[in-house]
């Protein structure tokens, strides 16, 4: 009863796949959402490492059993980090939007120039 069920595993799978799908989109807002989902997925998989995750940490459940506090501490740290960086990403996305009035990831001009080098010379 106290082991994490299949549902949690399925949730992690859905979060990972959804996160990576969103990460590959062109729109910056979707990329940010993808990062958020991936962060949740990683934190949930940290939770999955403990079989007794449904028990309370430190204070003890009915029989004095506790869950392993270490994954929770690690997840907390990771949440703080992802939270901080996500706010930063949002600010960046906002800046891109301010500059371009859309939130797509722009192309690199130098890359495009070099891409043209491989095209055949003027065919006229």
């Amino acid at each position, binding site marked *: 009863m106290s082991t994490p069920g299949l549902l949690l595993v399925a949730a992690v799978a859905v979060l990972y796949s959804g996160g990576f799908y969103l990460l590959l989109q062109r729109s910056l807002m979707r990329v940010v959402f993808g990062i958020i989902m991936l962060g949740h997925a990683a934190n949930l998989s940290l939770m999955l490492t403990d079989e007794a995750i449904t028990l309370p940490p*430190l204070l003890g459940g009915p029989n004095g059993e506790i869950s392993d506090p270490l994954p929770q501490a690690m997840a907390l740290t990771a949440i*703080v980090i992802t939270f901080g960086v996500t*706010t930063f990403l949002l*600010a960046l996305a*906002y800046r891109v939007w*301010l500059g371009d*009035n859309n939130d797509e990831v722009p192309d690199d001009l130098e890359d495009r120039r070099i891409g043209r080098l491989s095209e055949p010379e003027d065919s006229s």
Partner: protein
Amino acid sequence: MNIDGERQRESRGPEGSGGAPPEGWEAPRERWLSTVVRPAFGPRSVLLEVAARLLIPAILVLSVFLLVSGHDKPGGGFAGGLVASMAYVLRYVAGGRHELAAGMPTRPERVLALGMLVACGTAVLPLLFGAPLLKTFSYEAALPVFGDVKFASFLVFEIGVFLIVVGLVLSVVSALGARMEAEEEEAKAGRERARRLRRTGGGPR
């Protein structure tokens, strides 16, 4: 905590809209609700403002409770700091960026720096006495009102963390919330100008 006192009157300055505020003996000593509210989102909501006014002291007390109880119970500097900064975020949501600026005790970077100094200082101090990094010492004392109190040096570290979190959230709110508001107004004006130029055909081809 005096949230609508002196500072607020200072911050009124050029923002004081409408007629001149009563002066001399007519001027109220301290307003219970702010008069210079310009909410960040939507129209001014009196309900939210009153709720914020009532809640903020309670939230701040709770944050200190969390900070102190964190040694061997749930809580700690991080949770306490987050709760405390939520009080300020509430104030920002209710009153806009000027209210936030009026409510801050000092510049957020300074809070952040102070927290880092306190936290790192406590982490290093044991090293100077030959103990390992972050080693904690605790004393127990019987105080008249509080009964037996255990004071661990870890609490000082937690206070540092508390300050770091408050400083960080406040600087994020003031950088992302308040500065963005100003920038957005600027950008909107710029786009407006560009559109006008295009309509009149005066722009570069």
